[in-house]
């Protein structure tokens, strides 16, 4: 039995009475085994959990209906059983106590649910993005293989990995696993060009579907497809319904895939739509890849010695991963020697998503995670304060019970059980929220399945719930049971007061750091467009052609050629680019390599005409712009790339291999670094030309009459084409969308944290006013002014507030350093941000203390003195 079923089984095992245990669990196991034969492991686990959680009430009924056999009290089992019974009794008692204080209970549960919900929700996302493997049966036996070359210098890597040719050799000779290959290509798919939709495709080996045990709902899989059979494809159920209306006649028929015909051989079962982080709309047999190969671009199947495709597989029964590793190393080595290529080091990995070069994403999630933990800490601190106050009020009850012989440990366990009931209710709400995360993400992205909570998420939520219970209830329980039986029967108020001060300081500190983080992020984004406008951002506009919807690809290409020719021949200052500079997608990621060696360096490529540097006001620091004719194979690079490749000496005149086009270029110029690809850190960029038909954007300087002139020109050449003007100052906002999302999340967390801190300060101040009501009455009776009373109250809170601010300042400086990369050049010690945060915190403190202070000032000295 696998993991989740074991845990659930144990839970039911503990709850069932002994005379029914064997029968009920046997029944459950038998049904589970039946379900496992027909459904996926995840469905079976979900069924098991549903049965167990639904059966707990029945199990409790059985326990109450059945007489319990007496166990020896001294046995371990007897003691465990007694403790479990006491715990159930304490939990029922705790539940009754909480029902008697509905206001406190609801407030506490909601507050804890916020903290735990954020923890469970964010962990669900992290689990889906970074930890969880492919959702295929028995995914522990599925692996991915990587062939790496070592020996690359700092900042570079030797990108020569496993090729399709190597895969064919491995597939022919390998025995330890069912080896598969895949590559990803997006295509437009439909019954015809006009109805085609953009789809995520996987080019896979013919045995992929069988090896990964992807269920087929209609037709067959790709098995047996050979090179020369033409393009054969299996659609996912989602694409089949979306693009083909769920028509079963499409199986066996021909469909349109980006200009080529493909035969549909099958449709997957409903529910299958992704592997890991990538959505899949269709699976195409990989040998058909050359049909779509673009001139000047590497095709992994046609150029089968070139890097790279993805290789992996499923370990066969009787095999093992070490055996697979050994076999892959041997077979790859044989192939590489036969093709005179250098040796590769083979590494095997599981199918969890690779962080790869997304360290920035991992850093972002780490920061969000830290913020979430702070908010969770704040909720625990708030509820802990409430718990402390409530526990102290029950001092007399606790004293009586201690006097009657109850042990302190027993009372602490009882108070902890109350905390566990609260935390448990909040944890259930949090898990329900985590279960809703896939639906929220499905609205934004299609890869929702990978975010469904699994055992790991449940375990994190349970662990967080238990920690919450301990943080919230343990210390108050220990304090409140430290009763002086010989004295007044009260606990020491001094120690309770100190504890309250610590809690308050923590709340103020955590709130301060979260508010500052949000302020720094927002300020960084706001000042980025001015601080980093190192090119003609405000005075350049991008012009895009909008072709008629019924135009074919050939017609669109012809129209673009005619339009760009007319525009460039018009004599005005224009430039052409493939993508809009300074937008969310302004360049393509690729790698470059010196022709003298194998080391590759990550770079961005922007394809545009040489006149772009003039229009964008990005000066050349060396050499000249490249010519427009792509056949000349000229390129310009930015200073960052020049420094990386040729730290000593000039880059002009050198040669560079560009992976994007698989060609060697001659470097004719170096431009000054500019934020053409986004307002973050400057990336290494290479600029080349392309075929005229590839240029989709015209860059023009904004001058009077420019719009009208261009509109008239386009209408003259092709009246059916519309044009859209997008100033670069607007398009750059799209590139900041992710940053604004991050700032919005940080602001949301900061608002929650501030609210919690305000509630916490309000609570402490209210308690303080209540505690010192008599003193305030006496002071007022003796002639103290209201201002003096206000000052005295503020003085009482001085220490924890100062401690909190000091803690907040320290954490803020650390947070600022950690977030430096996301601040668009803003200093982490930006005084404006710190000033704004100080004002916000002071305003929050005034709001939090306003009502308690007003209550204090309304104290009637006469009433207070009479009540003595």
């Amino acid at each position: 039995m696998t993991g989740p079923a074991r845990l659930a089984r144990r839970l039911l095992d503990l709850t069932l009475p002994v005379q029914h245990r064997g029968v009920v669990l046997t029944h459950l196991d038998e049904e589970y085994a039946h379900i496992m034969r027909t459904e996926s492991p995840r469905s079976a686990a979900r069924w098991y959990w549903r049965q167990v959680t639904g059966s707990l009430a029945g199990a409790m009924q059985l326990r109450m209906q059945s007489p319990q056999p007496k166990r020896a009290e001294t046995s371990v089992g007897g003691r465990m059983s007694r403790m479990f019974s006491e715990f159930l009794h304490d939990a029922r008692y705790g539940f009754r106590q909480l029902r008697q204080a509905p206001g406190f209970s609801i407030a506490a549960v909601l507050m804890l649910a916020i903290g735990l919900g954020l923890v469970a929700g964010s962990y669900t996302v992290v689990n889906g993005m970074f930890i969880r493997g492919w959702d295929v049966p028995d995914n522990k036996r599925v692996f991915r293989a990587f062939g790496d070359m070592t020996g690359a210098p700092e900042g570079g890597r030797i990108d020569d990995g496993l090729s399709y040719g190597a895969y064919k050799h491995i597939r022919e000779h390998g025995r330890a696993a069912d080896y598969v290959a895949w590559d990803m290509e997006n295509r437009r798919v439909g019954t015809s060009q006009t109805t085609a939709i953009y789809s995520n495709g996987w080019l896979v080996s013919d045995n992929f579907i069988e090896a990964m045990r992807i269920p087929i709902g209609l037709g067959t899989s790709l098995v047996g497809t050979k090179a020369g059979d033409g393009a054969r494809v299996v659609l996912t159920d989602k694409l089949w319904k979306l693009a083909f209306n769920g028509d079963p006649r499409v199986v066996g028929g021909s469909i349109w895939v980006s200009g080529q015909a493909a035969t549909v051989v099958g449709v997957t079962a409903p529910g299958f739509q992704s592997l890991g982080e990538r959505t899949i709309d269709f699976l195409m047999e990989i040998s058909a890849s050359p049909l779509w190969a673009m001139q000047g671009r590497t095709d992994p199947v046609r150029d089968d010695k070139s890097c790279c495709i993805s290789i992996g597989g499923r370990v066969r029964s009787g095999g093992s991963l070490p055996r697979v590793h050994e076999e892959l190393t041997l077979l790859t080595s044989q192939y590489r020697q036969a093709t005179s290529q250098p040796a590769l080091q083979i590494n095997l990995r599981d199918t969890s998503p690779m962080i790869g070069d997304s360290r920035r994403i991992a850093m972002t999630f780490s920061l969000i995670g830290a913020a979430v933990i702070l908010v969770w800490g704040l909720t625990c601190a708030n509820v802990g304060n409430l718990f402390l106050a409530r526990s102290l009020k029950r001092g007399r009850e606790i004293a009586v019970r201690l006097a009657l012989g109850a042990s302190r440990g027993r009372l602490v366990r009882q108070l902890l059980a109350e905390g566990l009931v609260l935390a448990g209710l909040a944890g259930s709400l949090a898990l329900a929220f985590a279960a809703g995360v896939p639906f929220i993400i499905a609205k934004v992205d299609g890869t929702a399945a990978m975010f469904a909570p699994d055992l790991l998420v449940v375990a994190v939520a349970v662990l967080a719930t238990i920690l919450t219970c301990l943080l919230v209830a343990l210390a108050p329980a220990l304090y409140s049971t430290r009763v002086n039986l010989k004295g007044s029967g009260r606990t020491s108020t001094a120690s309770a007061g100190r504890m309250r001060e610590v809690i308050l300081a923590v709340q103020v500190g955590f709130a301060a750091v979260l508010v500052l983080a949000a302020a720094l992020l927002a300020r960084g984004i706001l000042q980025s467009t001015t601080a980093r406008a190192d090119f003609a951002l405000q005075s350049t506009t991008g012009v895009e052609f909008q072709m008629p919807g019924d135009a074919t690809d050939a017609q669109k290409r012809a129209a673009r050629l005619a339009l760009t020719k007319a525009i460039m021949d018009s004599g005005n200052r224009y430039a052409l680019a493939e993508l809009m500079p300074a937008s969310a997608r302004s360049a393509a990621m690729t790698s470059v390599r010196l022709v003298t060696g194998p080391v590759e360096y990550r770079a961005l490529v922007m394809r545009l005409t040489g006149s772009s540097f003039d229009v964008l006001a990005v000066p050349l620091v060396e050499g000249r712009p490249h010519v427009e004719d792509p056949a000349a194979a000229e390129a310009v690079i930015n200073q960052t790339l020049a420094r990386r490749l040729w730290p000593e000496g000039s880059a002009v005149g050198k040669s560079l291999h560009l992976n994007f086009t698989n060609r060697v270029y001659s470097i004719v110029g170096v431009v000054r670094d500019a934020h053409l690809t986004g307002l973050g850190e400057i990336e290494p960029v290479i600029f080349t030309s392309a075929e005229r038909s590839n240029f989709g954007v015209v860059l023009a300087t904004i001058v009077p009459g420019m719009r009208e002139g261009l509109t008239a020109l386009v209408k003259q050449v092709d009246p059916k084409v519309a044009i859209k003007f997008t100033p670069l100052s607007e398009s750059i906002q799209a590139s900041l969308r992710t940053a604004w999302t991050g700032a919005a999340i940080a602001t949301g967390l900061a608002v929650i944290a501030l609210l919690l801190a305000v509630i916490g300060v309000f609570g402490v101040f209210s308690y303080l006013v209540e505690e010192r009501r008599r003193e305030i009455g006496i002071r007022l009776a003796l002639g103290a002014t209201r201002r003096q009373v206000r000052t005295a109250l503020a003085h009482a809170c001085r220490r924890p507030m100062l401690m909190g601010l000091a803690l907040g300042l320290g954490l803020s400086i650390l947070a600022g350093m950690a977030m430096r990369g996301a601040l668009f050049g803003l200093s982490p010690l930006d005084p404006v941000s710190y000033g704004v945060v100080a004002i916000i915190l002071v305003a929050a403190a005034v709001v939090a203390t306003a009502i308690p202070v007003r209550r204090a000032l309304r104290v009637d000295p006469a009433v207070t003195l009479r009540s003595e």
Partner: protein
Amino acid sequence: MGGRQSYLGEFEQVVLLAVARLKADAYGMAVRAEIVDRTGREVTIGAMYATLDRLVTKGYLRSRDESEGGRPKRFFAITAAGVDALEAARELQTRMWAGLRLPKDGRR
């Protein structure tokens, strides 16, 4: 009708009927499958066994434990009292429905 008669609850009737239908094959898994197939209603194992145990306590069912390959299985059979209880429940339904015509739109 003298004395206070205890009538079967809705789910108790369903369970009793399932056991009656299955005759000699009425063990836990089969009873649950019978209920799910006939009612289309998802029934948790714990709730079903709690009801079976209650019916045994009331004397409407008797149970016997057997072992199959070392795994315990509990078979149930309806008693005469169980049959009487089912018939009483059916008679009660018949008496309550007698002569009643429910208008489709819910009005009298």
